[in-house]
């Protein structure tokens, strides 16, 4: 036995043997097995011997050797039955406490169910591709610390370059989803129809994109559906709308009444899954398409977003490195050729990244890609909130169970005297908490069902409870067990530790022992609640700030009539017709408005003649008509407004930021250069044309025809009548196209939907947290009053005033809440500050927010505590004393 450690059979197998076999046979059997093992070790390897040993142990599962349990079984059953019976009786006996425990748990479980559904939904985006791990989109990264940015658009030639220069790339396909030519929204009809219908979700796509994104075809072939020029692919639901019950391949479609240029249906794809980043209804082919002469090979304009499918086994990091060829061979060449002064910087800072398609939804990193996104931060925030609420509910359970322990002390003592072991007592109390957890789960599911529609509304989802899914039952069951264990563990060990003699003599100080722990838990609960409340209040503050800030334009009483490009030459006539109405002050047509969802046009600006010397100033270049500045209520600070197309076709009005960026002291009369020369005739005040998350950028206005939106400034109290008159005039001009009207202020508000949503989520969850915390506090205060009933009665008899007694009962709790506030304020302040940092323009974090949250919580706590305290104050002291 020189190296006995080496020789020993595995310990775990020995343990198993000891567990399985009856004590009286274990020694012999184990001895024999060991002997055989040692003999085998001489010949075989350790692993083989171990394995044989293990199999032999299992082979010992024979009637003669196994532990005999049969006789014990019925006792176990009876005991568990008894545990549950006692638990049930206790539940009924202390109804208030039971309701608090179950209610808190149920709220926690409901929140947990809802939030897990939300998280699961968010995580399910873009997971439906067969080639999941080989699908990427290409991202531009500009690493200039002063001007960091990421974007996904490329010049047209990117498709060809990706396909031809990189052997790793199996297929590349370009996509255009932003409002550009026919992409975006259109008036649409079948060629044999007259009435136009407004449709959204048009995208330009390369023929290969259908294959890359694995779109299942209903009609037509995925490889060829878009290969003919002017072909279009519809989704199933749109095909059903325009070509019910037939194969539409080969049929023609007219967009925006342009009969010269019809589109031919090349195929029908299944509706795109709602949990995919790409939500489009129509794909127009990019095959043989050139938007202006030379456009396809010009590296000026960045409009195409490539998706790629790489070959199996491609090293993505290496490919990202190789993509620098795009910068070196194309972007740089173009910049040098045009004398762009940013060329050196571009060589220094411009790199490329590949992002898996499945990351697009949650990891957007501030890219403007015209998709709607989720946010991984929000997902984590939700997970954290759900966890916290659940934790609060567990704490309630622990708090109340230990607080009420005095009531169970006798039972514990007696059980011990009669011969119960500590272990079986722990089992009893765990069984009890499981019972609570189970009842709560049932109630929780009901609560979740009731709250789901509301939750769907604030989270902008359409989820249904997955009650019938195979995983839901087991998952919930496991969850219930874990929650039951988690919250039952401490009480069960606490309760089962009572010493029978002390308990039965009645000398146990009634449940007051663990009061420190209870205080900590109450403090934790209230800190969490206060942080959530501060968050909710601050989000609303910011929303209010955003809505009420002076934007530099007047968003009130402005209508936007959309889709006027079909009016063509009649635009002016329609405008004149509208201006005849007294309720209309002015009207202006443009495709560009300071709200999301309207067109944008980024250009590079230079002072004329310096485009080969200076760095470009990037800014927006908007086409408007001569009434735009008046209608939108933008302030003209210098110079003059536009007069008419004839005299002002090369005039430009810039905002102050543009003047500052270009370094113009006296801008009026200066000549600017983009791709043509402009004459600055006026300067306007900076107005917010993008989300408040970003700084106001340089902007220029020029005259342009062919706009898609007519904005109308109203001066009326009778909105319905005005709308009717506007509609009547529209119908005179466009009988075949229903009018589409939206309000500028609504459109503006919609830009901050996400803020509002986060606000609602915070509000609802802070309400839940406060409810749970107050339930717990209520339970504790009720217990405290009950505990000190006799003391209070004696004090009263001796002449204590109501005030003193009230103080006596509430002071302790108020102290805890005070501490909770002290903890919560810095945390809340920090979190809110972090959140607000996203906004370039933000509200200030005032002390009043903290005061408000603190007062609200304090008040709620006071009400909660005083309910029971008052009862104690109002009862006749005799009642409290007579029982002795």
């Amino acid at each position: 036995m020189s190296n006995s450690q080496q020789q020993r059979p595995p310990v775990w197998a020995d343990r198993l043997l000891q567990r399985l076999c009856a004590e009286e046979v274990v020694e012999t059997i184990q001895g024999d097995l060991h002997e055989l093992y040692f003999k085998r070790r001489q010949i075989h390897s350790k692993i083989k011997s171990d394995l044989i040993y293990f199999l032999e142990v299992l082979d010992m599962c024979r009637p003669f050797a196994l532990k005999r349990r049969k006789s014990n079984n019925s006792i176990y059953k009876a005991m568990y039955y008894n545990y549950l019976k006692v638990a049930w009786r206790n539940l009924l006996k202390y109804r208030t406490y039971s309701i608090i425990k179950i209610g808190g748990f149920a709220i926690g479980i409901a929140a947990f169910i809802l939030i897990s559904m939300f998280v699961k939904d968010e995580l399910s985006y873009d997971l439906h591709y067969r080639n999941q791990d080989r699908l990427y989109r290409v991202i531009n990264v500009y690493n200039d610390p002063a001007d960091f940015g990421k974007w996904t658009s490329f010049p047209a030639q990117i498709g060809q370059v990706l396909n031809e220069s990189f052997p790793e790339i199996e297929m590349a396909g370009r996509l255009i989803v932003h409002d550009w030519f026919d992409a975006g929204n259109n008036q649409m009809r079948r060629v044999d129809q007259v009435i136009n219908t407004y449709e959204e979700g048009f995208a330009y796509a390369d023929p290969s994109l259908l294959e890359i994104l694995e779109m299942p075809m209903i009609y037509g072939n995925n490889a060829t559906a878009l290969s003919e020029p002017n072909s279009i692919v519809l989704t199933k639901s749109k095909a059903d709308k325009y070509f019910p019950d037939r194969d539409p391949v080969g049929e023609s479609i007219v967009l925006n009444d342009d009969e010269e240029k019809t589109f031919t249906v090349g195929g029908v794809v299944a509706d795109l899954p709602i949990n995919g980043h790409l939500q489009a209804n129509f794909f127009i082919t990019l095959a043989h398409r050139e938007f202006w002469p030379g456009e396809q090979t010009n590296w000026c304009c960045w409009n195409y977003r490539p998706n790629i499918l790489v070959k199996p086994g491609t090293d993505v990091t290496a490919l990202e490195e190789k993509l620098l060829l795009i910068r070196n061979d194309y972007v740089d060449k173009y910049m040098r050729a045009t004398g762009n002064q940013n060329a050196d910087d571009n060589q220094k800072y411009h790199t490329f990244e590949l992002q898996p398609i499945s990351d697009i939804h949650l990891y957007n990193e501030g890219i403007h890609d015209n998709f709607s996104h989720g946010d991984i931060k929000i997902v984590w925030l939700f997970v954290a909130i759900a966890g916290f609420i659940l934790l609060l509910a567990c704490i309630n359970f622990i708090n109340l169970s230990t607080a009420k322990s005095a009531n169970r002390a006798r039972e514990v003592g007696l059980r011990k005297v009669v011969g119960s072991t500590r272990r079986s007592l722990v089992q009893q109390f765990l069984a009890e908490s499981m019972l609570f957890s189970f009842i709560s789960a049932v109630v929780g599911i009901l609560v979740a069902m009731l709250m789901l529609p509301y939750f769907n509304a604030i989270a902008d989802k359409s989820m249904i409870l997955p009650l019938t899914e195979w995983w839901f039952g087991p998952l919930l069951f496991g969850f219930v067990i874990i929650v039951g264990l988690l919250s039952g563990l401490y009480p069960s060990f606490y309760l089962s530790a009572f010493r029978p003699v002390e308990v039965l003599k009645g000398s146990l100080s009634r449940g007051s022992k663990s009061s420190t722990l209870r205080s900590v838990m109450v403090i934790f609960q209230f800190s969490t609640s206060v942080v959530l409340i501060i968050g909710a209040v601050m989000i609303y503050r910011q929303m209010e700030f955003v809505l009420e800030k002076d934007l530099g334009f007047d968003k009130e009483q402005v209508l936007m009539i959309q889709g006027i490009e079909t009016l063509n030459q009649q635009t002016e006539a329609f405008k004149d017709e509208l201006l005849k109405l007294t309720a209309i002050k002015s009207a202006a047509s443009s495709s560009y408005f300071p709200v999301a969802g309207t067109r944008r046009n980024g250009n590079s600006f230079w002072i004329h003649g310096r485009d080969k010397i200076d760095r470009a100033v990037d800014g927006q270049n908007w086409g408007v008509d001569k009434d735009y500045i008046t209608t939108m209520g933008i302030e003209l600070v210098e110079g003059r407004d536009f007069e008419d197309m004839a005299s002002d076709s090369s005039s430009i009005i810039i905002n102050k930021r543009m003047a500052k960026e270009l370094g113009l002291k006296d801008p009026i009369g200066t000549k600017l250069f983009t791709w043509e020369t402009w004459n600055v005739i006026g300067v306007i005040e900076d107005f917010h044309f993008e989300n408040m998350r970003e700084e106001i950028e340089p902007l220029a206005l020029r005259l342009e025809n062919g706009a898609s939106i007519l904005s109308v400034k109203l001066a009326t109290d009778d909105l319905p009548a005005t709308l009717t008159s506007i509609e009547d005039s529209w119908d005179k001009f466009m009988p075949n196209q229903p009018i589409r009207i939206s309000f500028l202020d609504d459109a503006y508000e919609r830009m901050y939907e996400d803020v509002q949503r986060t606000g609602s989520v915070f509000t609802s969850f802070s309400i839940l947290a406060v409810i749970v915390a107050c339930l717990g506090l209520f339970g504790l205060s009720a217990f405290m009053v009950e505990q000190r009933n006799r003391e209070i009665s004696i004090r009263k008899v001796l002449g204590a005033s109501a005030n003193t007694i009230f103080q006596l009962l509430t002071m302790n709790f108020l102290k805890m809440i005070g501490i909770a506030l002290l903890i919560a304020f810095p945390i809340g302040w920090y979190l809110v500050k972090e959140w607000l940092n996203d906004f370039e323009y933000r509200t200030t974090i005032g002390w009043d927010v903290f005061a408000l949250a603190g007062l609200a919580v304090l008040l709620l706590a006071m009400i909660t505590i005083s309910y029971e305290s008052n009862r104690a104050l109002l009862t006749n002291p005799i009642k409290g004393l007579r029982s002795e």
Partner: protein
Amino acid sequence: MKIGAFEELVLLAVGSLGEGAYGVAVKELLAEKTGKSTSIGALHSALYRLEDKGCLVSSEGGATNERGGRRKKYYTLTATGRNALIEANKLRLEFSKNITGLNLEMGE
């Protein structure tokens, strides 16, 4: 006392081992005589059964080092066991007489 075929073999092995009849020894003897390896579980199962039937008695032996200090359980053939063996053999002989041309008896 009726015993099965495997039990018969076990009894024979225990009997022929005399003093040193414990689990591993029996297993090894059986393996040697029959040329087949017996599972230790099945063997112990049979030993316990035979003890129950009264064919064997057991006694605890001294601890040995090679078994990690665990004691051996020694089995001895009882009179009942011997009778059972005789009975089993008789049954076999009686039975085999029905087969013409087969003579199981040896020696006599």
